[in-house]
């Protein structure tokens, strides 16, 4: 296996996923457009809020739109490219891992990248539309936006994979994972400045929503190497914990002996 076989394998998976979801063209487009509108509704909330209050702890409408854009692009990218991250616990408890373990590819990567969530594309598009709305100052800003969203997505995938991987020991952890996902999205789309004390501490540690939203968004407008370093470190830690836990969990995995045919 040469060095390029990994990326080529991923590209092939993503291409197949895209063709698969586009099989039902109308449903695919409805989900993409629906998610775009869904996010727009939340911005309507913020527009009404700031029309009345103008700013909250220094955050204005533009800052929140940018924050929402970074989170949407990161979350959308993650669920487009690694769609099984939202249902990995089900993959584990229903024995679907048998399929991935039987092939000469990294099981976790293969499992995560084997599904695309169509609405994720709506999130991704919304993210870049939000960037356009707040006004891209320069190509560097757009690049920093994409980099921030990608690192935020890595933190998101790492944390969710970790919680889903608990299924190896605890049985189905879907409910916990769903709650963590909801918490990550919820807390990452609100101005970090409104959180203080223990809540703020948790957002940088146990539920690292700050690294999914506020920190990547901060890189776009006021870039610092330290900020980038912290975000990269957070992404590396999140993914390392996820990979180590998943590998250890495999020792506890009990095959579902499910007969699966993939066409």
């Amino acid at each position, binding site marked *: 296996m040469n060095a390029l076989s990994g990326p080529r394998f991923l590209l092939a998976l993503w291409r197949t996923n895209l063709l698969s979801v586009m099989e039902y063209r109308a449903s695919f487009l409805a989900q993409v457009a629906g998610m775009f509108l869904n996010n727009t509704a939340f911005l309507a909330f913020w527009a009404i809020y700031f029309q009345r209050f103008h700013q909250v702890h220094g955050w204005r409408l533009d800052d929140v739109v940018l924050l929402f854009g970074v989170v949407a692009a990161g979350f959308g990218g993650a669920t487009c490219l690694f769609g099984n991250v939202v249902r990995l616990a089900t993959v584990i408890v229903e024995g679907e891992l048998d399929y991935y373990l039987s092939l000469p590819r990294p099981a976790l990567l293969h499992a995560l990248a084997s599904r695309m969530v169509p609405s994720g594309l709506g999130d991704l598009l919304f993210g870049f539309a939000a960037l356009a709305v707040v006004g891209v100052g320069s190509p560097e800003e757009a690049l920093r936006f994409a980099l921030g969203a990608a690192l935020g997505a890595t933190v998101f995938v790492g944390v969710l994979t970790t919680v889903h991987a608990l299924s190896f020991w605890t049985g189905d952890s879907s409910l916990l994972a769903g709650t963590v996902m909801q918490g990550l999205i919820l807390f990452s789309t609100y101005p970090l400045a*409104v959180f203080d004390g223990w809540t703020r501490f948790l957002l940088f540690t146990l539920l690292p929503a700050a690294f999914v939203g506020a920190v990547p968004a901060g890189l776009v407008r006021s870039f610092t190497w330290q900020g980038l370093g912290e975000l990269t470190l957070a992404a590396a830690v999140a993914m390392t914990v996820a990979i180590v836990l998943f590998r250890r969990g495999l020792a506890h995995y009990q095959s579902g002996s499910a007969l699966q045919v993939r066409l």
Partner: protein
Amino acid sequence: MTALAPARKYVAISRIQVRAALAYPLDAVGRAIAIVLFVVVFLHLWRATYQVTGRTVAGLGLRDVVWYFAIAEVVMLSQPRTAPLLAQAVKDGSIAYQLVRPYRFLLFHLSARVGDTLPVLALTLVAGAGAAWLSVGAPPDWRGVALLPVELPLAWLLNFLMSTSIGLLAFVAEDTTAFEWIYNKLLLVAGGVLVPLDFFPGWLRGTAALLPFASTTYAPAHLFVRPGGPGAIGLLALQLAWIAALGSVTWALYRHGLRRLVVNGG
């Protein structure tokens, strides 16, 4: 046989659905956790807001807003989901079996959805009220608490009628998912869940207040915190008017759907 005999089967249907919901409680637990998370986030947002603006905005203080939000979220999280069930039944043809059974189709769904949502309503109410109480103290007005047994069923009924109407559109549109999404977003924004209508700009507040979305979420939440306010009677009257109007729409869509239905095979 007494005059109440026909009602018994619908009560039985509700009871069966309550048991089914209690047998699989994870969904209800998930929603209870969600409401706690929502209240925590909103507490932080509005506390930060009130630190800047002062004690009250448009007549509402921090305690009012947090309790308002908790009640509005209880309505959101315990809404009956008739639309996907009806759309699925139309798509897979099982609606043909439902229509010939010895019950009234719409009453069956009404009683079944009551059963589905009662445990969720109870759990989210306890979790949401608990989180609000721990955050900002007791409810602002106990008359609002007394009104809740009236207001929550009215809001639930509005949600049911809207969701059923959307589901019945499946006779025409087949896939109703997009309508459901739009309806939920309208509840969140125009229904005043995320920001009370009291904070809307004047021109938008007047229009939004007249829509059924406000009667579904804003009315119960606002009446909980301001039950004796000047517009209280008006809010209640508007809710009843929307129930009558949407009830008629639901009935008309049902009759229209029956006329379009073609059942093949045996």
